[in-house]
């Protein structure tokens, strides 16, 4: 599993390549948190384009970031969700608290 973080217009884009389980969720949590504070971004965007597997450890990791960012007035978004991850988003009700978009451009145009 590989994580790439880039700052784009106030959004920290966290691009995950690989599988999200208990083992990798801990690393994603630490990296995303560190990069978020280093970058000075306002929001966090998880890019799922290269995630073919996620279990409930991913749910906890995303809700954890949602709560963390809420404290500082930031939001968490999800983009490029494929069919595998989609089922987990549906079952867990994640979609109700994490806005999901097809691309980063759609996140950027939110609320315009």
């Amino acid at each position, binding site marked *: 599993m590989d994580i790439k973080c880039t700052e784009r217009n106030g959004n920290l884009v966290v691009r995950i390549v690989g599988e999200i389980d208990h083992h990798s969720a801990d690393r994603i949590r630490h990296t995303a948190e560190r990069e978020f504070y280093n970058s000075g971004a306002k929001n966090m965007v998880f890019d799922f384009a290269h995630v073919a597997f996620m279990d409930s450890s991913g749910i906890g990791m995303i809700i954890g970031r949602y709560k963390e960012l809420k404290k500082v007035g930031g939001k968490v978004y999800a983009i490029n969700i494929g069919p595998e991850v989609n*089922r987990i988003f549906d079952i867990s009700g994640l979609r109700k608290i994490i806005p999901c978009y097809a691309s980063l451009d759609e996140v950027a145009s939110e609320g315009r």
Partner: protein
Amino acid sequence: MFENKMELSFLAKSENEAFARVAVAAFMTQLNPTLAEAMEVKTAVSEAVTNAIIHGYEQMGPENMVSVTCRLVGKEMFVEIADHGRGIADIDQAREPLYTSKPEMERSGMGFTVMEEFMDGLEVVSELGRGTTIILRKLIDG
């Protein structure tokens, strides 16, 4: 009678979570599962194995083993995931959506719900101080 069977046993370390679910998925290819079926089984196995590691044993130890047994009966697949850890005091409560005994570890309490959603059967056998066995069942009809 089962028609095919395999058994795995590994140390309760998070590094082994991916190994366990991939091994089960590889074993089940003989039933020609769809991509969706294979993903569902992988996810359910990952949930049960992760639970054994983080809830069953809590602390790392050289004797902490998790076993995974797969049986194929016709088009049905049975997967048993067992630990010899602390056990579950209240199984009904544990199976409730959103219940977690470890909220401070960023657990969502959705593991059992995911297993139920993705499989056709889920049985939990547990005894305090002795361990937990999860029995998953799924019809693989391609």
